[in-house]
């Protein structure tokens, strides 16, 4: 269509997206699908770090920020696990392999995998779709296993059917060396012989030692109770990281809507340490 090269003589603005092609779709749970995205000519759209996000858009529908769930150690593609919960996600869920979308990013900061987390024992706590951003870190850690200590993963969901990435959890994470995976579901269910109970309670039951750095992601209410539990167990807020979610538009700290206190969640976040969150006004 457009053959002109009128725009090739200057750097493209960060607000101009790239076209991405959907190369694989996995139905994770009844309402979560994982989309694999490549550049139309093959390869990855961009490089990112674990915890970073990207703006995914279906032109004419809407655009929203999603965390990149694949690890940067994956050199072939990027993945997004997306829960069906609104206008844009409805359309995304109806898409097929070969369909094109637009993506811009990566945006935001990342979990400090190369700095603070290095050499640490790690405890990942996730609830539901909250596994998406942590999965990127977990796979990054597993691919650079020698840089980190023990790895514990606590992951809970409403039911066994709502556990995201179950195949990978069972086939990769559970078999990895020095990795303990603890799964739980909210209510008893036929065919489930694992743990039953809410994530915060399970974390307490597991009686983790406090020599770990914790990464949490899940529904706000879960984060709240998990944090309270951790503090009770003797963890300090400096040991705990999470990601915040707010309405975002530009992704580069300019459009103003994700501004809380003197931070812009899209640029200064989404990853925050809990002692940093404490300094923010209570508006998230």
């Amino acid at each position, binding site marked *: 269509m457009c053959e002109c090269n009128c725009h090739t003589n200057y750097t493209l*603005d960060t607000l101009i997206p790239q076209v991405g092609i959907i190369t694989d779709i996995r139905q994770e749970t009844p309402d979560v699908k994982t989309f694999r995205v490549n550049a139309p000519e093959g390869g990855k759209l961009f490089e990112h770090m674990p915890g970073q996000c990207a703006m995914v858009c279906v*032109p004419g529908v809407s655009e929203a920020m999603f965390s990149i769930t694949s690890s940067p150690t994956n050199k072939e593609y990027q993945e997004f696990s997306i829960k069906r*919960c609104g206008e844009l996600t409805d359309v995304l869920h109806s898409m097929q392999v*070969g*369909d*094109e979308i637009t993506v811009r990013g990566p945006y935001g900061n990342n979990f400090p995998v190369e700095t603070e987390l290095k050499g640490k024992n790690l405890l990942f706590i996730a609830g539901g779709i909250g596994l998406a951003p942590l999965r990127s870190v977990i796979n990054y850690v597993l691919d650079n296993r020698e840089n980190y200590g023990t790895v514990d993963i606590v992951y809970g969901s409403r039911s066994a059917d709502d556990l995201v990435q179950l195949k990978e959890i069972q086939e990769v994470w559970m078999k990895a060396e020095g990795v303990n995976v603890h799964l739980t579901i909210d209510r008893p269910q036929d065919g489930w012989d694992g743990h039953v109970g809410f994530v915060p309670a399970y974390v307490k039951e597991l009686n983790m030692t406090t020599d770990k750095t914790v990464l949490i992601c899940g529904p706000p209410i879960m984060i709240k109770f998990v944090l309270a539990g951790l503090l009770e167990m003797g963890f300090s807020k400096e040991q705990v990281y999470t990601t915040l979610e707010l309405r975002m538009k530009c992704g*580069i700290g300019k*459009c103003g809507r994700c501004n809380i206190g003197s931070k812009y969640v899209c640029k200064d976040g989404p990853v925050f340490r809990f002692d940093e969150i404490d300094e923010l006004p209570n*508006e998230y």
Partner: protein
Amino acid sequence: MKKIVKENLPALFRAIAAQQDLFLPIKTAGQTNFGLWTEEAEVDLETLKTVKSGKDMFFPQSETLYTCLKDDKKIYIKPEALQDRNFVAFGMKGCDVKGLEVLDRVFLADPVDTFYAARRKHGIIVAMACNEPETSCFCKVFGVDCAEPSADVAVWLTSTALCWKAQTEKGEALTATLTAAGLLEEATEADLHHVEGEKAVTRAIVEKLPYMNLSLEGWNGEALNEKFNSPLWEKLYKGCLACGTCTFVCPTCQCYDIKDYKTGTGVQRYRCWDSCMYSDFTMMAHGNNRTSQMQRYRQRFMHKLIYFPANNDGMYSCVGCGRCVEKCPSSLNIVKVIKAFAAEKTNEGGAR
């Protein structure tokens, strides 16, 4: 310093417009705003403040970023071309120019907004000194000298002439062209005297303005939680209609929204001014983190007076132009907020 007699102003505008686009205050249906000069346009240099500040010459209220064209499953993205033609922004006031400094902090920070940056690069600002400031003005509080604005070119409108002083390289270049065209002539001793007189008069009036002594003491990053949690907000916001007047007339408000428009042949992605006063500003699929108007009202002032300076070496995101003071349908404004907090402080002091 150069000058041009008032009668020749149309010729000056014509000459500028022949070389590049010229924006200046134009009166349409009774209201003055910056607009593109044409022979028919009613130029209005008398009105002290345009309704909207000059910011939309650099950050338009609505601008297309790119167009998406679809061909079956394939998507083509056609970015909008950047500003590549010079333009002159004539008649901005000291506060408007200062407002651009604030916007620069946002749009020129990494990653640079190339659309804005291109306009800044190609824009030549001819700022006009104020005479007869309004009681709603308080630019001096933010360090603006409205009697001598700093811009590419500063101009003074006296009773007989427009005096012209280039202050930057860009300004020098424009001045040289216009002088070569025989439009600008050397100002006389009398003109200089006249300008100095004007400046002195304006500065004397500024000293008498009621908001001149507004104190910003206590508005800094350290006071974040104290100000945020103050019960005063609950009282202050009551009359707020949740309209966007204050944000749209403000020279420093820069929040924007990004939207799609289906033209029938493609999808235009454009950005447009948004307002933190609007209920849908922070609305997303899983909820809204600012559900009450009090929170939204508080956000605007906290951002201008606390968050922004905390991130930008103490620079406030207010330039004291007083547009919100004049335009708010409920007569709420930043001055009332600052005063209310100051009064609270005094009361507390008195009680102790």
